[in-house]
């Protein structure tokens, strides 16, 4: 089969319509079932806050919450996200009000270049949802799937500890 744009147009009948909820909002997209969820979020839905760092599920920059569970969106085919409830970084703040984690990341220096930050915040959110008073070991383990090249993690740990306190006092 010859590779040209014309022929690719004909293949569009392999696409399917999927419904999912993203940050509380119902969305319907028309995509190939093997489109990566990461690309659906960034492309079809224009939610570019979720990042691609490695494309192989190692760096965690693409982390989102799917039905409340932390997942690497670069490893999820769109079809498997149908009917799910997704939370991305765009859904973390409550309007103009930053979440406890976001505020703590800012205060403690948890974000330097910022590219790992959305995934790191989602992973931290997932951790605090499961363990509202995490030990340092819990934090190290909870974030071990999110690589940061800038911070050496120290100030990220501080941010999570501070956010846990903030959440507890809220």
């Amino acid at each position: 089969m010859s590779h040209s744009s014309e022929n690719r147009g004909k293949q569009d009948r392999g696409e399917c319509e999927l419904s999912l909820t993203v940050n509380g909002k119902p969305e319907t997209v028309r995509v190939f079932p093997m489109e990566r969820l990461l690309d659906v979020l960034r492309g079809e839905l224009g939610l570019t806050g979720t990042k691609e760092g490695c494309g192989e599920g190692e760096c965690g920059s693409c982390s989102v919450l799917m039905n409340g569970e932390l997942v690497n969106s670069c490893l999820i085919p769109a079809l498997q996200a149908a009917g799910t409830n997704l939370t991305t970084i765009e859904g973390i703040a409550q309007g103009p009000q930053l979440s406890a984690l976001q505020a703590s990341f800012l205060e403690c220096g948890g974000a330097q270049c910022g590219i790992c930050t959305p995934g790191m915040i989602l992973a931290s959110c997932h951790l605090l949802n499961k363990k509202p008073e995490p030990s340092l070991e819990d934090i190290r383990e909870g974030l071990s799937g999110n690589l940061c090249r800038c911070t050496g993690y120290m100030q990220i740990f501080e941010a999570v500890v501070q956010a846990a306190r903030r959440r507890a006092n809220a």
Partner: protein
Amino acid sequence: MRSDPADYELIAPGNLQAVVSLLADEPGKWLPIAGGTDVMVLYAAGKLPARKLVSIWNLPELRVIEISPEEIRIGAGCTYTGLRDHEIIAREFPLLASAARWTGGIANQNRGTLGGNIVNASPAADSLPALMVYEAELILVSRRGERRVPYVDFHTDYKKMKLAPDELIRAICLGRRFSNYLHYARKVGARDAQAISKLCVAALGRLRGGVTGSVIDEVRIALGSVAPVPLRLREVERFAKGKPVEPELVQLTRKMTSAAIQPIDDIRSTARYRSAVAGNLVAEFLQQLRGSGKTV
């Protein structure tokens, strides 16, 4: 991203019966994909040969964990997180729980499944040596029915196993009879999290009273990343049985371990390193066994 989504088909029939029907009608044509933590990596690298995939993610029949007094039946679709969080698995099958904890980060544990780990059959897979020493049995399902097979000889060669083209793993069965054994596992990776094993060990052991002190009643030792398939050290196990744990025994088992395995040089490590560390960890297991007080 080195694959074109347009070139692939993925369907999700939503129930086990529909999936096994599909596999029966078109054997070898559809690749089952559960959590995708192996398949999608190959796909992204442009290295997935399959073009048609059938999703078995979240099939209710594969997610159940059934508990009975003699055994526990873990659905093949159970994720690593599910394994870690399950009270009975954590208490009675700690080697499986620790393997789950050591596989990837939290995000990958939420998606990776035990069945997927078995069928992907990486020699480095962390849960497989645990299944070997717990002498798991697999329930395989197809349209033809179900059959139950021992796990210990399920893998026949690198990425080859006793699974027919129309079969899926439905469940993994573990007998609940290891409470008075010492459970030992260690994973050796390039870093403390998110590492593919250079070597992993799972072992069970217990002692019994002997004429002059305790001797080994039984040991079971399995290693990953030292052969094309996960390996039980049968010769070492036979040799150690009935003997007291003394320095001479430990030294001999170290040598026998090195002789029994066929590690290679690869991108992660060297054959010599793997061989030496395997010997060290088997020795460490035996020394822990001596002091464990785990007796028949």
